[in-house]
Each structure stands twice: as structure tokens, then as C-alpha cells.
């Protein structure tokens, strides 16, 4: 039997967490070493998988592993990887490594922090390679749940000033507090899970009592059933991808979360939602996808514009980045809704590009916050003079965010808007483009207000630049962003091994799909 590389990637973080359970609280160095080593092991595994998938060329699935879990119910541990899964494994590997390294500066109960964090990472890896719907769901839940404690215990309570007619209610509810954010996030995401579960049971029953996604893809569900099941999956997974109007957990959650958790959550977990919409919703329910494509695309456009406008109005650094995530995830969903090769490739590429970019953003924000204990932008200014490296990387992330050619963000947005133009609803590209313009306004304004111009103010005059661990994290993410921007084929070839296969299956199910 071949080496179970996928299980190895999934198991490394969980194994590290298990070892940490038996370490004493004081062994902080050991804990950090183990965490970083496990993340490196998983990252190397992911890189190897990507290389192999590229080398083996377009085929369906590689590295299949299959064990029966509950035979009488047809539940099996079934993992395998295709181009989509491999690209997201790589993304998760990179961000986990960067996050684990960036968190080495944490002093408050690092052992428990890493246990939860690595448990979560195992879940994320699992989702991207699970080919059994049930196991997919299990991994999904593992990825979502530790978030409550991670934010609730290690999060920070922001200083968002409540404004507007509902300020009193927001103060009463402790909006902006970490416990409020953790609870909101958990409830919204588990509400989504309830919908996913219902849709899953529907497919299980109608699809001949199997959870095997390969089998389910071959089943022709009645269009009427698909009309019911698809929105459940779309909203259920979409809630995690920041789907409007269920996105409001995201700014609160990301703002309150500790650095590594924001990196992972915005960088990887939101992709889990979008990946679920694509891989489970659209691939398994092709008729549903076509029936609902207009709604999906239109709401995605609202996401782009609404997220960008909301980000414009923020003065809290973390909220700007968090709302920009909502806007960028709209691009992913728009790409999915186009049902075109370019759109889907763009959606997958955007998942990768946005993941790296937002992780870079959040690690920078965490770095700034750790030194200033402030996230209020009007208090800042001229930081480039004291922390030049940070300023450089922040500017790089901004450029990718607004879709500057030469960064990964450009490739992704270009493909998605191209796909939108080729789709049945070409007008999607227009508000989408406007959203990208607004993005340019708020990210450039943010960069100027923080790093350039007057300053730095007296109390921030002695800030230090990134330390060693932080520099490792920044360089990793920054380099990735540029490499895939200049040489997009590296990733695109990988994604494109899977896209046409899925799209052909979708096309076989109905007319009106542009290739």
C-alpha cells in the first residue's frame, strides 16, 4: 500500500495537539517547537502532493484511502485529492506555518492555544480532501468549533465606538466584545451547519443511501429536489464564506480573534464555506446550481459592493480588513456563479490569493496591535519611519487587495470578471468592477493614514519593527503572493486539472451553460 500522504497531512497537527496534552504548562518552548514542526511537516506534505498531482496530469482523484466507519450506514473514511483540493491544501499549509510561527510570541497559555489551533487545522485539511460527504461534514465541524474558545479566551476586546441610532442596543449587547463575537460566530456558523445537515440527509436518502461523493455525483436527483437542497447548501456553507446578509459575524469575529486565529479564519476557514458551495452544492446538484445561479451571482455582487462600502466607513484597522474579506469572498462566490471555466478557475485562484493576502494583512495588523495596543487608525500615522519592513509588506498586501498586476490578487479578479462577462449575466462584471475600485480607495487611504504622512505620534515613536518570528511569517506570505502573481500558471495548471471535469458534468445536465 502506498504511503497515506493525505492522512499524514491531516494527522500531523492533531498528533502534535495530542502530544501537547501531556506536556506541562511550563514547557512553552517545547510546545512552540512541536507546533511549528507539525505545521512544517504538513506543509511539506502538501507541497509534495501538489507536485505529484501536477506530474500525474489531469485525472480525477489521487491518493485515495478508504476505510469503513459505520458500514451499516455507508459512512466511510474516504479521502482523495484533485487539483482543487491540492491547491487548498497548499494554502492551508502555508497559512498554518505562518500562523504557528507568528503565534510563538504568545505568552498566555500557549499550550492550550496551540492544541485548539492545531485541532482546527486538522479539520481544515480534512475538509479539502474528504470525498465522503459525512466525513466532510465532520471535518467541517471540527474546523468551526474550536473557534469559540480560541476567540473567547485569547481574543481581544476592541474599542469600537458605537454610533448611530442603535448605539444603545449595541452597547448593551457588548458589540465588539470578544465573547459577543465568539458567540455570534458560533451560532451563525452552526445555524449554517443545521441547513447543511438537512440537505445532506436529503441527498443521502434520494441518492441510494450513500455518502460517497463520487457515487452521489453520478446520481441524477430530480430538479425539484435540487431546487430545495441547493439553497440549503448555498446558505449553509455561504454563512461561513461571509455570504450577504449572513456576513456580520465576520467583522466582529475577525476583529476580536487573536492574530493567528484571524489569519486562519479569514485565510482558510472562509474558503471552507466557498469550497463547500462549489464542491458540494454546485458539483453534486448541477440542476440546482443552474436554477439558482442568478441569485448566487447577484448576491455575490452585493457582497462585493456592500463589503467594500462597509470597509470604507471603518476606522478600526481590523474591521477594515475584515470587511474587505467579505468583499473579496464575494468575488469567489461570483466566480462560482458564472458556471464558466474562467469563473471557476478564478474562484479557486481567488480563494488562494485572498487567503494568503488576508493572512498577511492580519499578521501585520496583529504585529501593529501588539506594539501599539491600538487599532484606531486616526491615532496612527507615519509608522513607515519606525517599522519600514512592516510598511513594505502592508503596501504589498494592499496592492494585491486592489488587484494590482504582478500580485496574485490581479490574476484571480481578472479571471472572475472575465468569467462573469462570458456568463449569462454579463452585467455582473460592472458592479464587480466598481467594488474593486472602491477597494483601491479604502486600502490606499488606510495605508496612507497608518504608514505615510505625518508622524509617528509621540507615544508611538519607539515602536520596533518585525522580530525574527514575525519576519519569517511575513516573508513566507509575501513571497507566495508575488510568486503566484508573476507566475500564475504554477497554480492555474493545478486548478485547471479539475475544473473542466466538474464543469463537463454540470453541462451534461442542462442547457444554457457557457463553456
Amino acid at each position: 500500500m502506498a504511503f497515506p500522504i493525505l492522512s499524514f497531512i491531516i494527522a500531523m497537527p492533531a498528533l502534535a495537539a495530542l502530544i501537547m496534552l501531556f506536556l506541562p504548562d511550563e514547557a512553552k518552548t517545547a510546545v512552540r517547537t512541536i507546533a511549528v514542526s507539525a505545521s512544517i511537516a504538513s506543509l511539506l506534505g502538501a507541497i509534495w502532493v501538489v507536485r505529484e498531482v501536477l506530474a500525474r496530469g489531469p485525472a480525477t482523484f489521487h491518493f485515495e484511502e478508504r476505510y469503513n466507519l459505520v458500514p451499516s450506514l455507508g459512512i466511510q473514511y474516504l479521502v482523495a485529492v484533485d487539483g482543487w483540493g491540492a491547491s487548498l491544501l497548499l494554502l492551508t499549509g502555508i497559512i498554518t506555518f505562518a500562523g504557528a510561527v507568528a503565534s510563538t510570541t504568545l505568552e498566555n497559555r500557549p499550550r492550550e492555544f496551540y492544541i485548539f489551533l492545531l485541532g482546527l487545522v486538522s479539520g481544515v485539511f480534512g475538509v479539502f480532501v474528504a470525498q465522503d460527504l459525512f466525513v466532510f461534514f465532520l471535518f467541517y465541524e471540527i474546523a468551526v468549533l474550536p473557534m469559540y474558545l480560541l476567540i473567547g479566551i485569547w481574543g481581544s476586546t476592541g474599542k469600537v465606538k458605537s454610533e448611530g441610532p442603535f448605539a444603545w442596543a449595541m452597547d448593551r449587547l457588548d458589540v465588539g466584545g470578544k465573547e459577543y463575537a465568539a458567540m455570534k460566530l458560533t451560532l451563525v456558523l452552526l445555524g449554517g451547519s443545521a441547513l447543511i445537515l438537512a440537505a445532506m440527509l436529503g441527498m443521502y436518502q434520494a441518492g441510494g443511501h450513500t455518502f460517497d461523493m463520487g457515487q452521489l455525483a453520478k446520481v441524477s436527483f430530480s430538479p425539484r429536489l435540487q431546487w430545495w437542497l441547493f439553497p440549503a447548501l448555498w446558505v449553509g456553507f455561504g454563512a461561513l464564506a461571509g455570504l450577504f446578509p449572513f456576513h456580520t459575524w465576520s467583522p466582529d469575529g475577525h476583529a476580536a480573534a487573536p492574530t493567528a486565529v484571524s489569519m486562519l479564519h479569514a485565510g482558510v476557514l472562509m474558503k471552507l464555506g466557498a469550497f463547500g458551495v462549489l464542491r458540494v452544492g454546485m458539483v453534486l446538484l448541477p440542476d440546482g446550481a443552474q436554477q439558482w445561479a442568478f441569485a448566487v451571482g447577484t448576491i455575490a455582487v452585493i457582497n462585493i459592493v456592500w463589503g467594500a462600502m462597509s470597509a470604507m466607513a471603518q476606522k478600526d484597522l481590523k474591521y477594515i480588513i475584515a470587511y474587505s474579506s467579505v468583499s473579496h469572498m464575494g468575488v469567489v462566490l461570483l466566480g462560482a456563479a458564472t458556471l464558466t471555466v474562467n469563473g471557476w478557475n478564478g474562484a479557486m485562484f481567488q480563494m488562494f490569493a485572498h487567503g494568503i493576502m488576508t493572512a498577511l494583512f492580519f499578521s501585520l495588523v496583529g504585529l501593529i496591535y501588539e506594539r501599539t495596543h491600538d487599532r484606531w487608525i486616526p491615532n496612527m500615522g507615519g509608522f513607515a519611519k519606525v517599522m519600514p519592513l512592516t510598511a513594505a509588506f502592508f503596501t504589498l498586501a494592499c496592492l494585491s487587495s486592489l488587484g494590482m498586476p504582478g500580485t496574485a490578487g490581479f490574476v484571480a479578479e481578472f479571471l472572475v470578471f472575465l468569467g462573469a462577462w462570458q456568463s449569462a449575466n454579463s452585467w455582473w462584471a460592472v458592479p464587480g468592477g466598481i467594488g474593486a475600485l472602491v477597494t483601491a480607495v479604502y486600502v490606499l487611504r488606510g495605508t496612507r493614514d497608518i504608514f505615510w504622512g505625518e508622524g509617528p505620534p509621540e507615544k508611538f515613536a519607539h515602536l520596533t519593527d518585525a522580530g525574527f518570528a514575525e519576519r519569517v511569517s511575513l516573508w513566507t506570505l509575501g513571497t507566495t503572493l508575488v510568486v503566484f502573481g508573476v507566475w500564475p500558471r504554477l497554480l492555474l495548471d493545478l486548478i485547471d486539472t479539475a475544473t473542466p471535469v466538474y464543469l463537463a458534468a454540470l453541462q451534461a445536465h442542462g442547457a444554457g451553460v457557457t463553456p
Partner: protein
Amino acid sequence: MNVPMLVDFQPLLPDLVLLVGALWLLILDLLMPHGRKRLMAGGAIVTLLAAAAATWLYDPIGTVWGGAYLGTGLAVFLKRLFYVGGAVAVLGARTHVNEAYARRQGEYYLTMLFSILGMSLLTGARDLILLVVAFELMSIPLYVLTAFPRDDKRATEGAVKLYLVGAASSATLLFGLSLLFGLAHDTSILAIATHVQAHPSPLALVGAAMVIGGLGFKIGIFPFHMWVPDAYEGGHTPFIVFLSALPKIAGFTVFIQLLLARNGALATMALAPLLVLSVTTLIAGNFLALRQSNVKRLLAFSGVSHVGFLMLALLTRSELGLGMLLFYGVGYVFTNMGAFLVVHAVKNGGGGDDSIASFDGLVRRNGWLAAAMLAFLLSLAGIPFMVGFWAKLFVFLAVWEAGFYGLVVFGASISVLALFYYLRVVRAMFMNPPANEAVIDVDPVTNTAIVLCLLAVVGIGLYPGPLYDAARVAAVGFIGN
């Protein structure tokens, strides 16, 4: 007339073992010097385990008393649950009982054993007479046990409440049964079900409704649940560990016997009231739990909502549904017992008042207790890799297969709401600073009981296959008869 031989009672062998063991302990208790009485707990556990072993050694399948008792796979499954669950409950209560009622502790376990004997007989009762007798055999010891701390005014008050409610509920149940008997002219449940199926009448519906209402009091269906939180709050926690878990499943055993006979004839007739009651129970249980500040009350209302889930399984009237009800029952018993045991340990060792605030910073005062409680709460909330997740999932699966799609969506959404109040306890344990840094000590016996519950919750959660298969097998062939 044939003289009954012992072999004719083979289906009742486990019950006989339990009875003989209990009687033997009764005599032993009289002869034993006071200083040795703590050994009675061991005797009770040995008796229960011996009865459980009897279900494996001899096949307790067949009829006794001319069909009044019918040993089936279902009966065996439930018997094992009652015996093993009872043994864990005895273990969890042992230290407390030894300290609180040193001289009377033998009586405590004896009363408990007789209650379990009643439950055990219920598992096969196919005749109204036996059903009622077994039901009272289960219930009356519970009143006694609630009043066991006789110097405690609140416990006495709780016992009187429980007794009055219990008497009223028994009377309602009996009245309903007498109506059904009057219609069918037979005390056999099968005959009644057959008759009702052939001649549906409003009177039969009234009879069924009174049965549901009467039992509803016992198991805490909304709106008959009012006594539950008061009784739990007032009662001594080691006893609530028992009261909150096994009698509920016993109540459902009666439901299964009556409502599911002959392809669920009575349940089909009373489908509308059952449907309304299960939905209102789910809503009320969860919403009322939201604002509780006492952990025991919170768990009481959460128990009400779990009854709602069990009723969903009952509604399906299918073999799959029955099997999943059994699975849920096992999960519920061990999760709930574990949670109440932790509540007891925290109060006992930390001197709190059972409020959520008394759990503040538990992770720093006793990390192991906090971790165990986390597992139990997650299981109650239905989170993966805990038994509660599979239990909910399997019930939803059965409900979906039965065609109640809306109920699945409703049930899944309401279980998200439930997470809100379970997480309040998690937040107190992990995020709030402790009121004082004093370490909470747990005695090894109580700790063992918690470990056993945790093993069940996590073990089945990680590998649900065998229990799922066992529950499916136990349910085979029951509904059709």
C-alpha cells in the same frame, strides 16, 4: 394446569437475579454492623452487574405469564441500559450517601434497586396490569429517594411535589388505560391496539391522550414539565443523577409498549397531539433554558428539550425510528449522568451554589473536571465526536426517512439555539476568572463514575458503529407485533 417451572421464567432471569440480589441485600443490611454499611454500594453494583451478565449468558427471549411479559430484543437492550446505567448511578452516589446517611445507606441502595426492577419489568410488559404494577414499582421508590434527606426542608418539599404530581399523573394514566380497556374488553396491549386500529373512536383518542398526558408528567413533556426544574434544584444532586436519566427512558419504554404496538396504531391515531407536543416541548425546553442561572435548572430544561428529540423519534413509528430512539436513550443517559456528576463534584469540592457563576474558572481549579464537563455539554449540544451528535443525527435521519422534512430543519435549528446556553457554562469554566484559586478535589469513587460516563460519551462518539447496529437489531420485529 401446568405447574410453572423455573425454565419458563427464563425471559425474566435478569429480573429474578435483581430481585434475589435486592432481597439478599435487605437481609444483609439488617445484620450488618453500622461501620460496614458502606459495603452496601458494592453489593448493589454486584447485583446490577450480575443481572446485566444474565442478559448475556441466557437468552431472555420468550413469553411469561401467558403473554403478559414478552422478552424481546428491545427488552434486552433496555434492561442492559437500566442495569449498567443504574450501576454507574450507584457508584456516583456512593461517597455522598456514605457521608450523608451513614446508618441508612443500605435502604438507599435497596430502594434504588427496586426502582430499577420496576423499569426492568416495564421493558417487556405487554399487558396493562403488569404495565401499571411495574410502573408503580419504579415510581414509588423515587418518591422515597427524593425524601431521603429527611432533615432537608427543600428536599422534603421536592418529594411532596414529586409525589403529588406523580400521583396525579398515575391517576391520569390509569384513567386513560381504563378507557382503552373498556373499548377493547381486554388488558392485552396487542388486543387493544388491534381493536383501536379496526374501530377508531373519539373515546380511544381521549384514552390515548390521557395516557400521553399522564406519562408526560413523568418524563417532563411540555406543558407537564413544571415540577422538573424545582425537583432537580431541590433534590440532592447524586440522586438527580439517577432521577434525570433512567426514569425518563423508562417512561419512554411505556410509550413504546403502548403507542408503537401493531405498527404504531395508537401513535398514528394520536399523531397530531404527539406532533404538537414534541414541537412545543422542543421550543419550550430550549427557550426556558436560555435564561437559567442555576446549572441544575439549566440541565433540567435541557432535559425537557431532549425529551422533545426522543419524541421526534417516536413519531416516526418506524423500526429505524425506534432503533434511533434507543441509541439516543443510551447517549442521553450517560451524558446527563456525567453532567450532573460534575455538578455534584463542583459543589461538593468547591462549596458553590450550583449557579453558573460557581463554575467560573473551573479550568484552573480542576482542569480535568472542566474538560469532562466540556465533553458532556458538547454531547448534550450534539457536537461531533460525542455520542450526542450521532444520537441527534440518527434521529434526524429516521425522521427524514419518515417524511417529516420540516421537522428535521426545525430540530436542527433549535439545537443550534441550545448551544447558546450550553456555551454559557463553557464560557464560565474556561473564560471567566475563578472566584478563588482553591483546587477542587474529587474523591476517587465519584471520579471513577465520571470517567465511566466520559468513556461512554467519547467512546461511542468516536466509534458509533457497534451501538448503532445493536440498536437497529434490538428494534427489529417489534413494531409489527
